[in-house]
């Protein structure tokens, strides 16, 4: 979906995916592909996961399974809210200037 390219920061999509519920890497990947009709490479996905884990936006849930589920933290929720508000403001301004709202 080319219209999403401007905001196609993988971390944003991962946080949105986890805001719905806990998921492991593979499920996050499938959710992103299904929701936005775009592909996210495994390297990009885990690069973003490791960065966000360091920033404490997400955390791994202890599991014996090979696939470790992740959950969004309160800091992650706050960051996501801030980012979505930014996008909302940009979108609103864009529509206003186009005379669509």
């Amino acid at each position, binding site marked *: 979906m080319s219209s999403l390219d401007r905001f196609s920061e993988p971390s944003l999509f991962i946080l949105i995916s986890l805001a719905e519920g806990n998921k492991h*890497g*593979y499920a996050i990947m499938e959710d992103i592909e299904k929701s936005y009709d775009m*592909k996210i*490479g*495994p*390297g990009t996905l*885990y690069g973003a*996961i*490791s960065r966000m884990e360091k920033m404490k936006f997400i955390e791994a849930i202890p599991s014996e399974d090979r*696939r470790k589920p992740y959950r969004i933290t309160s800091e992650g929720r706050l960051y996501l809210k801030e980012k979505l508000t930014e996008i909302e403001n940009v979108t609103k301004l864009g529509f206003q200037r186009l005379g669509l709202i």
Partner: protein
Amino acid sequence: MKWLVHLYPKKWRNRYGEEFLDILENRELSIKEVLDVMVNAIDARFLNLVEELMGVDKKFRNIMLQSVLKRFLILGTVILLGLFGGYWLANAAPSVLELPASAILLIGAALGLFSGYVIGLARGITRVVKTTQKEDVYLPTGKLKFDKT
């Protein structure tokens, strides 16, 4: 697909290796995705290197700070010894009037050198403090950061 995981640094592999391999094994990887893994592996190696360098810098700073502490301890001991020694010498040494002219000249030169050293040191410290109030200055002892508010 294991070879792709091995492109990542060991620390990363220990943390994410198994789950990452699970994705690689359960997916038909396109060339684009293989390239994506390779590029991100380079990125992870670079980040790992930066983290290691930062760790080395921290260790180096700790060593240097310990060294500064040691220097202060040595300097403090020398000053104390000098004070007590001077007091003892003042009691035991003859009056200035009794000293020969060459000895007075020598003492004068030594005192002049010492005063110059102390003034120079004080000026150096003042300059460092003034500069660091405006910007961060990196010294061999580490980053000197002063409150600039």
